[in-house]
């Protein structure tokens, strides 16, 4: 390989010599695929910390999972939710005009393969019948799986939900080959014609190649909630402003580790990595230079986790907001330091168990309240603030689009499920994010200074269920969803349910909530009532809340309860021999639980 100058005199020359793409694609990617670390040669890109755009598309994850999604076209309605929610760009949709499809199918020799490929397309009402009724030719809609990108999380199956058009099926060598051939066929087809991509339906965005700026191949965990947020943010920005008018700065954290594991880069757009604490100020430098170059219209996003923006880089974020610069910030809020093994952050929920906030004899998880970054940001002048989740995709997309339109700083905090640290299944990102909103753990917020002069004009809580009430009640069933329901569904809170302590046979989350968790519920309610008051939904007495803290008294009560349960368990073990012993233990357990229940009712 020829010598590459480090500092070429002009921008054009610098760009030309930044990376030798041919060498990178032919030698580096191939070497990383085949060789062990001891055999790898040093290369100039590593030395200069450069990874060519979209090199992640070459990464093959097909060996990871045992299952892959199976698409059932006759059940598909073309809603695109599976495509939106996939964290790995492993499932894509396309609308094709019948003649264009036929002409591609005619080039396939094997009739069985032809039938298989034709069967990938559905005559949906959305893209076919509606257009035919208008006198236009309808389009055929198909969903395609990229087997090299799919990690088998099954998030798409959950996103599809009641449509029942996706399920998981076991992979074999033969079917893997089929899936690859089918995906190659998808790539050969023309792009979705623009007439099928409605500007009003935000869910259609990912039909456009301008939206697919995150190509997958990132090393994120299966089902990662952060990766979906990054995909959706890049999609909404690229779709409206064009892929050429957009760049990113990323604060070190999980997001930078999985998107820049050499030699794989999932982004097609310019991206730079800052230190953990200074993504926001790094962004100020980029914005200043871009403005000097006449690039005021280019959109700049700074991304990072809750550790980066609520803790270590909090001051840097505040400084950036005060500058009034046109910079957008996306906070991937996992409520924990995900990358370094799950230490508590100021975004962690009260009572949440994590490293540095363990649940044991003395401590019962995190004792502090959750820091509400959205509330703090709203108190800075002239800043757009939103709190959203990928499960509420229309809300999410709208927030990103509004942040891009806003002439000044914007901060979007996105609830991001972290499967290993939250203790939830790989396919649970969307479900848990929805539950976080329903349970007031993480309310949806839009604060737009353009909407008026008063707080209540600017703050919008639309999208939260039962917005007038303390908690959400499901009309059909009458069931009320509160923070305890959310906590029950995640392993990070399981120690707070006494059933778990009593008997490991009882599934986590089925016992009575601990006093500390009940305090956490009150803390979430206090935050919700504050938002209701600020948004002008409630005022005066109804919005009044006492300061909530995880009290020492609460911890003592929990310790007593635990001691009683442990004693009962010990007694049961001592007396257990055969079925009679088991029955006796069950009696003891039932009596103890009844006693605890009665004590609670008395209180």
């Amino acid at each position, binding site marked *: 390989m020829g010598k590459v100058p480090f500092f070429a005199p002009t921008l054009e020359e610098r760009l030309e010599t930044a990376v030798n793409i041919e060498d990178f694609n032919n030698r580096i990617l191939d070497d990383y695929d085949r060789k062990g670390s001891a055999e790898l040669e040093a290369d100039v890109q590593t030395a200069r910390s450069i990874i060519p755009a979209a090199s992640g598309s070459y990464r093959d994850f097909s060996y990871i999972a045992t299952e892959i999604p199976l*698409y059932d076209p006759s059940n598909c309605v073309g809603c695109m939710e599976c495509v939106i929610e996939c964290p790995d760009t492993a499932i894509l949709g396309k609308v094709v005009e019948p003649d264009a499809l036929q002409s591609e199918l005619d080039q396939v020799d094997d009739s069985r393969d032809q039938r298989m490929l034709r069967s*990938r397309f559905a005559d949906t009402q959305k893209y076919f019948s509606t257009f035919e009724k208008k006198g236009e030719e309808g389009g055929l809609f198909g969903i395609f799986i990229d087997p090299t990108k799919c990690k088998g999380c099954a998030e798409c*199956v959950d996103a599809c939900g009641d449509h029942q058009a996706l399920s998981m*099926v*076991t992979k074999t060598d033969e079917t893997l080959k*089929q899936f690859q051939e089918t995906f190659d066929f998808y790539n050969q087809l023309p792009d979705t014609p623009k007439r099928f991509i409605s500007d009003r339906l935000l869910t259609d965005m990912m039909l456009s190649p301008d939206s697919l700026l995150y190509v997958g191949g990132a090393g994120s965990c299966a089902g990662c909630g952060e990766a979906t947020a990054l995909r959706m943010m890049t999609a909404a920005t690229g779709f409206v402003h064009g892929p050429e008018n957009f760049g990113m700065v990323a604060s070190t954290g999980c997001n930078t580790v999985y998107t820049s594991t050499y030699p794989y880069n999932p982004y097609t757009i310019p991206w730079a990595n800052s230190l953990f604490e200074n993504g926001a100020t790094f962004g100020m430098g980029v914005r200043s230079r871009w403005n000097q170059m006449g690039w005021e219209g280019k959109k700049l996003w700074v991304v990072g986790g809750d550790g980066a923006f609520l803790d270590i880089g909090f001051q840097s974020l505040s400084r950036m907001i005060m500058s009034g610069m046109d910079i957008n910030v996306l906070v991937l809020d996992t409520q924990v330091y995900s990358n370094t093994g799950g230490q508590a952050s100021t975004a962690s929920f009260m009572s949440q168990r994590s490293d540095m906030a363990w649940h044991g004899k003395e401590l019962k998880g995190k004792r502090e309240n959750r820091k509400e970054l959205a509330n703090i940001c709203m108190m800075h002048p002239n800043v757009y603030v939103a709190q959203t989740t990928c499960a509420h995709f229309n809300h999410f997309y709208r927030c990103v689009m509004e942040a891009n339109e806003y002439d000044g700083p914007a901060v979007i905090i996105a609830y991001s499920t972290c499967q290993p640290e939250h203790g939830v299944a790989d396919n649970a990102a969307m479900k848990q994010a929805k539950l976080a909103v329903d349970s007031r753990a993480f309310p949806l917020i839009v604060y737009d200074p353009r909407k008026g002069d008063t707080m209540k004009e600017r703050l919008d809580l639309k999208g939260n269920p039962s917005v007038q009430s303390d908690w959400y009640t499901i009309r059909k069933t009458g069931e009320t969803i509160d923070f305890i329901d959310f906590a029950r569904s995640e392993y990070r809170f399981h120690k707070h349910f006494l059933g778990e302590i009593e008997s490991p046979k009882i599934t986590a989350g089925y016992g009575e909530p601990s006093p500390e968790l009940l305090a956490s519920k009150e803390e979430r309610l206090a935050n919700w009532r504050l938002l209701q008051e600020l948004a002008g939904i409630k005022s005066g007495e109804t919005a009044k809340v006492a300061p909530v803290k995880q009290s020492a008294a609460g911890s003592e009560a929990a310790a007593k309860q635990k001691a009683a349960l442990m004693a009962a368990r010990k007694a049961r073990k001592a007396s257990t021999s055969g079925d009679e012993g088991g029955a006796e233990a069950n009696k003891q357990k039932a009596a103890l639980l009844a006693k605890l229940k009665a004590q609670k009712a008395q209180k």
Partner: protein
Amino acid sequence: MKVSEAPQRRSIHYIEYRQTENGEWISEKFHADCELVMEHKIADGEIAQIEAGERPDWTILGLPEIRCNGEVIKEYLEH
């Protein structure tokens, strides 16, 4: 139903086509433990293929096991 009791994963082991007493065909996707996972809307031409012992086109990709009235179809067994 509490959220923690919601089904966690929907993977299928086989697809069953069944003719009911009134002659109507229905199709369902099942898990290995014979638990119904979800329904399948039958499209034009599928039943003719099933009656001929062939795999319906939409199942050529992924090659799931296909049963017709309790019997595994010929094409699956021969494959």
